[in-house]
C-alpha cells in the first residue's frame, strides 16, 4: 500500500465532503434537527417531572360550620404535592356550566363539583362528589384520569382513617366503663378488646396498606438519561445513512466524475483507494458523532459519562469505529445494485432511516411490535449502539461490554469483507463499461 496515495484520498474526500452543502445537511443539520426536536418536543424540559393538573372546582358547600367542608377540600387540592411538585393548579368557578365549558375546550384536565352539605355528610355518613375527567392533550387524558382517581382514593383513605381514629376514641372511653377488664379475643390471637377493635376498624377503612418504592431505571425516568439514550439514537441513525452513502458511492462517484480510469492508471492501487476512502469515511463519521454528542450534552442536556481512565468508555469508542466500518461495508454491498450516485444515495438514506426506526436504534426496542424486536435483536448495528449506550449512559463495565464487542467485531469483519468483494466487482464492471 502507498501511504501518500491513501493520504491523498483522505484529504480529497474530506475536502469534497465538507464543501458539499448536501453532505453538511446530512452529517450535521439533519441529526441536529432530530436531536433538538427530541429534546424540546418529544422529551420536553418538563419530562420526568411530576405532572401538575389544571382542575376547576365549583363549591356549593359554602357557609357550612362543619369542621370539614368544601373550602377544606379546595385547600387540600391546593396543598397536594407529589415529589415536591404541586399536583393541582386549582381554578374556582361560580357554576358548573362555566367549568364544564372550559373542560370541553381542553383548558382543564378535570373538575370537581362539591355539593351542598358535603362536609356534613362526610362526617355523619357518605358525601357525594362529582369528578369530571378532561384532556388538555391526547397524551394527558389517561394520566389525568389516573391522577384524579388516585387522589380520590387517597382522600377516601385519609378521611376514613380520621373517622376510624375518632370512633376509636369513643370506643375506648365507653369500653373502660362497660366492658370487662382484661378481655381478650382468642380468634384474633388473644389480642385485647381495644387492640382488636382498633385493628378491625383500620382494616375496614383501608384493608391493604401498600407501600410504593421508586426503583425504575434512571434512564427511563430522568430526562437527561432519556436524552443520553436518544443522543446515541441520533448517532446510530446518522451513522447508518451516512455510512451507507459512503460505502455505496465509493466507486460510482469516481466513475461519474470521470476520474476512476485515471486513478486506476496511476501507481496507486484500488486497495489504496478503498483504504483511503474508508479512513476518510471514518473521520467524517467520527466528526459527525462528536458534533451530535456535543449538541446532545450542551443545548439539550443529555447525560453522557466519559472518563479516559475507564476501559469501558474506550471500548465504546471502538464499538463506534467498528459499527462505522460495518455500515460502510454494507454500503459497498449496496453498490452492486445502485448504478449511479443518486440512486446509491437515495437507497442509502431510505434504508438507513428505515433501519434506524425499525431496528431499535431510534426508538427503544420495548416500543416496537414483536417482529420488529426480533429484527432489532439480530441487527449488529443495534448491538453496537446499545453497547455504547450501556457504557456511556448507564455505566456498564468493560467486562459487561465484552460479549457485545466480540459479536460486533465478527459482524464487522464479515460485512466489510463482503463489501470489499462487492467493491472490486463494481470496479471491474466500471472499467469495462
Amino acid at each position, binding site marked *: 500500500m502507498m501511504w*501518500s*496515495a491513501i493520504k*491523498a484520498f483522505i484529504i*480529497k474526500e474530506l475536502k469534497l465532503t465538507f464543501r458539499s452543502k448536501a453532505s453538511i445537511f446530512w452529517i450535521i443539520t439533519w441529526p441536529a434537527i432530530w436531536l433538538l426536536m427530541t429534546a424540546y418536543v418529544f422529551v420536553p424540559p418538563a419530562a420526568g417531572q411530576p405532572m401538575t393538573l389544571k382542575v376547576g372546582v365549583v363549591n356549593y358547600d359554602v357557609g357550612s360550620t362543619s369542621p370539614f367542608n368544601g373550602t377544606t377540600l379546595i385547600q387540600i387540592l391546593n396543598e397536594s404535592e407529589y415529589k415536591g411538585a404541586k399536583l393541582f393548579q386549582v381554578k374556582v368557578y361560580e357554576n358548573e356550566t362555566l367549568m364544564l365549558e372550559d373542560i370541553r375546550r381542553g383548558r382543564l384536565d378535570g373538575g370537581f363539583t362539591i355539593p351542598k352539605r358535603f362536609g356534613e355528610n362526610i362526617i355523619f355518613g357518605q358525601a357525594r362528589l362529582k369528578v369530571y375527567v378532561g384532556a388538555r392533550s391526547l397524551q394527558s387524558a389517561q394520566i389525568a384520569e389516573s391522577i384524579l382517581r388516585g387522589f380520590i382514593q387517597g382522600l377516601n383513605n385519609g378521611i376514613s382513617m380520621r373517622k376510624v381514629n375518632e370512633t376509636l376514641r369513643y370506643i375506648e372511653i365507653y369500653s373502660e366503663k362497660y366492658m370487662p377488664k382484661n378481655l381478650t379475643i382468642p380468634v384474633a390471637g388473644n389480642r385485647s378488646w381495644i387492640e382488636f377493635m382498633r385493628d378491625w376498624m383500620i382494616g375496614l377503612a383501608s384493608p391493604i396498606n401498600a407501600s410504593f418504592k421508586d426503583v425504575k431505571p434512571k434512564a427511563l425516568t430522568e430526562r437527561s438519561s432519556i436524552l443520553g439514550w436518544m443522543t446515541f439514537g441520533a448517532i446510530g441513525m446518522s451513522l447508518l445513512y451516512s455510512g451507507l452513502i459512503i460505502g455505496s458511492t465509493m466507486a460510482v462517484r469516481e466513475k461519474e466524475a470521470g476520474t476512476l480510469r485515471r486513478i486506476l492508471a496511476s*501507481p496507486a492501487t484500488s486497495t489504496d483507494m478503498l483504504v483511503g476512502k474508508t479512513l476518510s469515511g471514518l473521520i467524517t463519521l467520527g466528526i459527525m458523532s462528536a458534533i451530535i454528542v456535543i449538541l446532545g450534552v450542551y443545548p439539550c442536556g443529555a447525560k453522557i459519562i466519559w472518563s479516559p481512565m475507564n476501559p469501558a468508555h474506550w471500548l465504546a469508542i471502538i464499538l463506534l469505529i467498528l459499527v462505522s466500518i460495518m455500515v460502510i461495508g454494507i454500503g459497498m454491498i449496496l453498490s452492486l445494485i445502485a448504478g449511479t450516485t443518486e440512486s446509491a444515495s437515495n437507497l442509502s438514506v431510505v434504508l438507513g432511516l428505515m433501519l434506524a426506526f425499525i431496528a431499535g436504534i431510534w426508538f427503544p426496542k420495548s416500543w416496537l411490535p414483536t417482529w420488529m424486536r426480533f429484527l432489532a435483536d439480530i441487527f449488529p448495528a443495534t448491538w453496537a449502539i446499545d453497547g455504547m449506550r450501556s457504557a456511556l449512559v448507564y455505566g456498564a463495565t468493560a467486562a459487561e461490554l465484552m460479549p457485545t464487542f466480540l459479536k460486533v467485531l465478527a459482524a464487522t469483519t464479515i460485512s466489510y469483507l463482503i463489501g470489499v468483494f462487492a467493491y472490486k466487482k463494481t470496479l471491474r464492471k466500471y472499467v*469495462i463499461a
Partner: protein
Amino acid sequence: MLKVKYGVARSPSTEMSVDVCLTVRDVSKRFGDRAAVDGVSFKVHRGEIYGLLGPNGAGKTTLLSMIAGILEPDSGEISIDGLNALDPKTRGRVGYCPQEPIVYDDLTGLENMMFYAGLHGLSGGHVKQRCRKLLDQMGLGEYASRKVKTYSGGMKKRLSFAITLIGDPELLLLDEPTTGMDPRIRRSVWESILRIKEEGKTIILATHYMEEADELSDRVAIMDLGKIVAEGSPEDLKNRYGPKAVIDVELSKPATDPEAVIEEVKRYASEGRVMYRNDELRVHVDDPDVVAPKIVSELVGMGIGLKTLKITTPTLEDVFLRLTGRRLIEG
C-alpha cells in the same frame, strides 16, 4: 478497395531501428462475443507523437486502457521500456489522460494536482512547487487557487494535461483530447500537446479527428474494428492509400435524391468512391482537370445547383475511406 483491411500495411520506415518506448505485441481483448482489440501489434518510438486514428468503437480506448494497465489483455504483451504494463510500478512511467475530464470541480486546480501527486507517490514540500510549475507551464498559474468549476472547458483540459505530467511520465496516453471542443480551444490544446512533445515526452494520441492526427502525429496507425489496418506517417499514408486528388462540391441545396446523385457522379470517381453528406459531395479522382467539368455538367444536367467546387489533396479521411470503405465520422 485494397486488400489490406484485415492485415497491417506498414510503411518501410517504421521498421528502422530506433529507441523504442512502447511495444505492443499481438494484443487482443474481447468483451463477450465482441473483439474490442484483435491481434494488434505496433511499436512507439521515444519522443514521437503516435496517432491512433479510427472511428468511435474502433478499439482505441480499450487499447489505451491496456497500455495504461487498467485492463488486462486476453492475449499478447505490452511492455513499456521493457517492463510489463500491468505492473503498478510501470504505471508510474505512463501518464494517462482519458477522454472524460479527470478533475474534481469542487477542488482548486492546485488541490487537484496535489491529489494526483499523492497517487504517484509524491510527497514533501517540493511537490507543491512542482504542481505550481506545471500549472504555470499550462498557463494556469494564476488560476491555481480557484475551484475548477469556474474553469472553461479548455482550461480543464489543460489542467488534465498538467495532471498527466505530474509523475514525470515517459509515455503519455491522450484519449480523444479535443472531443467536443470548439476549433479555437482545440487549437490551444494542440499547442499544449506540441509543447509537451518538445519536452521529449512520447505521446500516443487516440483521436477520431483526421485533422488532429494529421497535424500532430509523427506516425499514425489507422484502427478499425479492433485492428490496425495501416500504419505510417500521415504523408506516407496519403501517398500510399489516398487518391491523386479530391474534388469537394458544395451544392446550393441538399439533393432530393442523394442516391441518384452518387450513382451519376460515381462514373467519374477513382474506384467509384463518392461521399455525400448534407449538401456536400466528396469525390476521389485520378485526373481532376478532366473530371471536374464533367461532374459539374452532370450535376447541372440533373437540375442541381453548385455553390463551390474545390480540387484538393487527399486527407487521412480519404485514406480511411479507401482502406475501410467507410467514413471516420458517419452522419
